[in-house]
């Protein structure tokens, strides 16, 4: 819920900067390893935006895969969860590089 409110606040802030008065579509990027649950965001988005400049806006969610740097293999490897080992060496000395983001990517406005 508060993540949706965060989205709305950014939409309202950007309205003045980007000179728009209505939001038609919002594209969010939610990493596979992010805390946010896309289903809950979809559910809350409509409720939070009702009566605002984004009332009725379509919500599009793009999932980005997890990617980590394995120090042992010195290579970039795909990861599904924070606790899964490196698929190459089975080690856990991984540094997450992508897939934990929670961003507004793009808006369709008028």
């Amino acid at each position, binding site marked *: 819920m508060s993540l949706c409110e965060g989205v709305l606040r950014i939409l309202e*802030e950007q309205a003045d900067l980007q000179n728009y008065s209505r939001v038609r579509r919002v594209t969010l990027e939610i990493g596979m390893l992010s805390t946010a649950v896309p289903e809950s965001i979809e559910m809350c988005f409509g409720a939070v935006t009702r009566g605002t400049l984004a009332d009725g806006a379509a919500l599009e969610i793009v999932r980005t895969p997890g990617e980590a740097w394995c120090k042992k293999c010195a290579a970039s490897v795909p990861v599904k969860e*924070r606790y899964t080992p490196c698929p190459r060496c089975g080690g856990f000395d991984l540094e997450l590089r992508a897939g934990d983001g929670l961003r507004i990517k793009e808006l369709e406005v008028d």
Partner: protein
Amino acid sequence: MCVTCGCGQPGHDHDHDHAHPHDHDHDHGHSHDHDHDHGHSHDHGAMGAVHDATISDARIVQIEQDILSVNNRYAEANRRFLANRGVFAVNLVSSPGSGKTTLLCRTISDLKGRFPVSVIEGDQETEFDAERIRQTGAKATQLNTGKGCHLDAHMVGHALEELDPAEGGVLFVENVGNLICPSAFDLGEAHKIVVLSVTEGEDKPLKYPDMFFQADLMILNKIDLLPYLNFDVDKCVEFAQRVNPDIQVIKVSATSGEGMQAWYDWISRRRDATVSAWERAKRLHA
């Protein structure tokens, strides 16, 4: 009136009859009427007469903004506030019932002679915990999140103003008991510390990996109960390190006092470093 954000707290009885950026939550644990007359005028000028919903003048705007960016701005303001006073701040997170408040009460009783200690208590409801903390002699402010499940940096900013923490001290923020949402919200602290008690499962770090990933220290509490439980300490530590190879671990019992010295050393070293940095900065600006 709030000096950081101008949100009008406390009182909250103002009407929003102006274009308000609304960059904060109004979760203050009490109900209030909140008129919300946003100035979103839809002036289409001369074209207004011929405007047709089917002829859309829609355009695409790339904004690439972190959804938590608003919270993060408040967190940075809190961090500056704390740095200007040389206050070392930690954010304590855990599930409900891990013994955070008991751990804090004992910590304060044992450390308050060394440096000033202040506490921000977060709970959904009640003043109980702040009251317990105040009995130890430390300054405490209670934040009630109402329906909210975590503290955010904006609420903490207000609590900091009210609390007015002493220079060169330690600030403990006791977050709402919840291992999920608090992991995403930076409050301006130096470190997140996750408290896990041995009466919980040793697989918690895998079940709630985000929190253990964000924490720099795991305090394993209630170790005096280990003889009565099937809790595998080594396995728990291994699980935590799978999620976060850099996580440090301190095993304590806030009841018996076992292991507490290591925890006090951990805080004191970091608090001393914070104070040295603050004093250096003051000399530079003098």
